[in-house]
């Protein structure tokens, strides 16, 4: 296991470094200079030059990259082109995105798995069709369409939930949940179908397997068969799916965060890209990259815990 972990982490670090280089030089190719982006087209050229100089944007690209990466490795994330320290932007944003992701997951993962298993148990019947087709249709509808519908129904018509997700500073736990319910709900609609289908496919395959038939023939009650044999195997592909969704939920939610005015890391990334705000852009990309890597690493570890064949390195895995 330790060798496995070490190899994965090593590869991960190289990936992150490549990511930082790609993003930096990719963003620098975009048209427009930073000072002008920040101050707008009607600011005087003197003001723009003064800002560019202050930000070091008039230096060669490699110099800018080196300045940034050496600071980053020392733990200094630098300053945004707007003057704020990057850590003041990134960490709260990450926290917000994680909160939303956790809430969405807490709702959609059990729901999706339950739906998939139920569908598999009633394969071919009405409930299966409902869950499969319903879930698929919900996934096909983009997240921002769900967002608009949700705001219309719950904020405007019923007036029970707020139309923005950003709670006022100092709100308690329950208030924060209230504010997060609508975007979380949208994410549930989008993710349910995918998770349910994976769970369903995995469960059907496990139900068909030899070991399941053996267990049933042995006379074990259905509940025990499900718990000890079927679920463990059917959830394996589902775990992989859930882990990759972590990347979507933390960094990929730009449109939802924009509609709900939610200060998550997706929105921070988007703003930074628009403004050519390299310090924020780089840090945000790396943070999202780390989240992705950690999520897939966790998924692999969980997978190997559930599947002894992987853990023990058998050829059949």
């Amino acid at each position, binding site marked *: 296991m330790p060798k496995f972990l070490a190899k994965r982490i090593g590869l991960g670090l190289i990936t992150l470094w490549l990511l930082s280089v790609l993003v930096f030089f990719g963003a620098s190719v975009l048209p427009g200079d930073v000072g*002008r982006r*920040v*101050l707008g087209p009607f600011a*005087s*050229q003197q*003001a723009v030059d003064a*800002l560019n100089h202050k930000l070091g944007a008039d230096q060669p690209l490699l110099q800018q990259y080196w300045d940034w990466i050496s600071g980053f490795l020392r733990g200094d994330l630098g300053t945004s082109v707007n003057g704020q320290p990057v850590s003041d932007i990134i960490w709260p944003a990450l926290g917000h995105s994680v909160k939303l992701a956790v809430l969405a997951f807490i709702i959609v993962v059990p729901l999706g798995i339950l739906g998939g298993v139920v569908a598999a148990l009633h394969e071919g019947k009405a409930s299966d069709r409902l869950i499969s087709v319903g879930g698929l249709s919900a996934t096909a509808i983009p997240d921002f369409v769900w967002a608009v519908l949700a705001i219309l129904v719950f904020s405007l018509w019923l007036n029970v939930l707020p139309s923005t997700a950003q709670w006022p500073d100092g709100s308690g736990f329950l208030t924060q949940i209230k504010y997060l319910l609508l975007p979380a709900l949208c994410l549930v609609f989008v993710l349910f179908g995918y998770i349910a289908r994976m769970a369903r496919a995995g469960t059907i395959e496990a139900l068909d397997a030899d070991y399941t038939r053996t267990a049933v023939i042995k006379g074990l009650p259905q509940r025990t068969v499900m718990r000890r044999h079927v679920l463990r195997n059917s959830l394996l592909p589902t775990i992989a799916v859930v882990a990759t969704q972590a990347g979507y939920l933390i960094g990929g939610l730009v449109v939802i965060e924009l509609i709900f005015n939610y200060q998550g890391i997706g929105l921070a990334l988007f703003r930074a890209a628009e403004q050519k705000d390299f310090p924020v852009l780089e840090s945000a990309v790396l943070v999202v990259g780390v989240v992705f890597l950690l999520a897939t690493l966790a998924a692999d570890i969980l997978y190997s815990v559930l599947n002894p064949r992987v853990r023990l390195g058998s050829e059949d895995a």
Partner: protein
Amino acid sequence: MSRDETSRRVDAIRAHSTEIENDLIDEYSAGRLSRRDFVRRGAVIGMSVPIIGFLASACGGEKRSGGTASNAVTQAGGKEVTVKPGGTLKTGIVAPAAELDPIKIADEGGLGILGQAGDYLTWSDNNLHLQPRLAESWKPNGDGTVWTFKIRSGVKFSDGSPMTAEDVAATMNRLADPKVGSNSLSTFGGALSKGGAKAVDPTTVEFTLDAPNGSFPYLVSSDNYNAIILPKNYDGNWDKTFIGTGPWKLQRYTPHVGVTLAKNPDYWDKTRVPKVDTSDIKFYDEEAAQVVALQSGEVDILTHYSVSGGKALLNNPNLKTIELRSSTHRQMHMRNDKDPFTDKRVRQAVALAINRQAMVDGLFAKKADEGNDSPFAPVFPTTDKSVPQRQQDLDKAKALLQQAGKGGGFSVTLDTWNGFEIPDLAQLVQNDLQQVGIKLKLNITKPGIYYGDAVYGKSPWLDSVMGITDYGHRGVPNVFLTAALGSKGPWNAAHFHNTSYDDLIKEYVGALDVSAQKSAAGKIQQMLLDETPIVFPYFYYFLTGTKKNVANVQVTAMGHFDLTKAGFTGT
């Protein structure tokens, strides 16, 4: 007071007035100035309010000529209404674009905040009247090259330190310093240079200008929104302290989310100590989110919304809308130095082909004024109203094209960006021009691409043969006249180089009395109608939305909002 006494008093006032003031009184007495214009101009040149009031009735009475229509097209709650004291008002504004630095701010969201915690020397209200704030009074010298301002005493900054003339001079010199690179440079350019402001004594500041300027008090008013008075040793980090002399103090600021302000009970103007305890200002990136916030009650006031984005608000019986005439507009420029627009007849044809009324009705539900191809919007007092409004005339347009040798029509690309109602405007223009044989190709991109580096040679805005640019409201048309149309202007997308025009601008800017300003304005308007370097299709209104039970919200078309008297009524 008998007629004899009145005329004796008038004579006494005149004997003590400067030449400029006497000229103004002459104009008014001769009936060449409306009462409204007299009052407004009197304030600009620094006559005291009681004297203006007295002269307005003493020298008035006969038929007035000219005058501007009231700016407030409809002001829900125009008169001050009693409101419940205490509590919190929640206001939604567009998110400030960058960090809150009074020196650099160049956007509507940021400037609104400055006006809460800071004060200006003078306040340009929604009728473009100048009201004294930190400056008690002001006077020009004989030719308008030196303006002397008397600064109010006894005013304290939010940290307790006293505000004096030295702070005022330091603030203005800092804003005029090219090395500091403030957004104010576009306002001060050509008028005030670094070092031009001097504190003569603790309550007097003398401004020595680069050239005569009859409207200088506007340049240090709230129209120059960066010019809140800061301590002379200010060195940055305004967003940590919100230092200023204003009616609101910082309670908590969360970037991108909002700012909570508490009322300043020691505010120097006892008539404007806020009625509510707290002002909660929330930031929104998207107009759709703002509109929904007002509808759902998440905010009580929405300082600015557009017709296209806020249709649901216009007809909502639980909300009120305040409408202000403004000078916000779009400029459709044509490169005067490039084919096919080198011949002014072609440019006139384009201007005659478009249907301005349809634009006002369709894009703004009639909440806009037609533009007459010059920066002189109906809201400006100096606009010469006698210049006839250009109307659509397709036959004349076709005839002009024929004369210019373009009878067979031609094809041209229009560059612009996809914000506000601009794409819709471009479509309407395309349809209109089609009818006279001009095929318009639309190249609508993002603002970053359209504006580019905002310098000649590196910006589709400034280089394109034809384009549409958005311009925000200003209290006086000066910057539109010089920057967008002057030969040396940095925003001259039409590449309009005309020395007679440049001379007329000098005449307009330097004029110290209203009739000279109006006459220069009239000449400029006529010249621009003839040359038509740029089409100005409309000037649209500034709309503010509030809940029905919120009163006394004061806004200006620039985006300033004054909530000191605002609050909830009993209903």
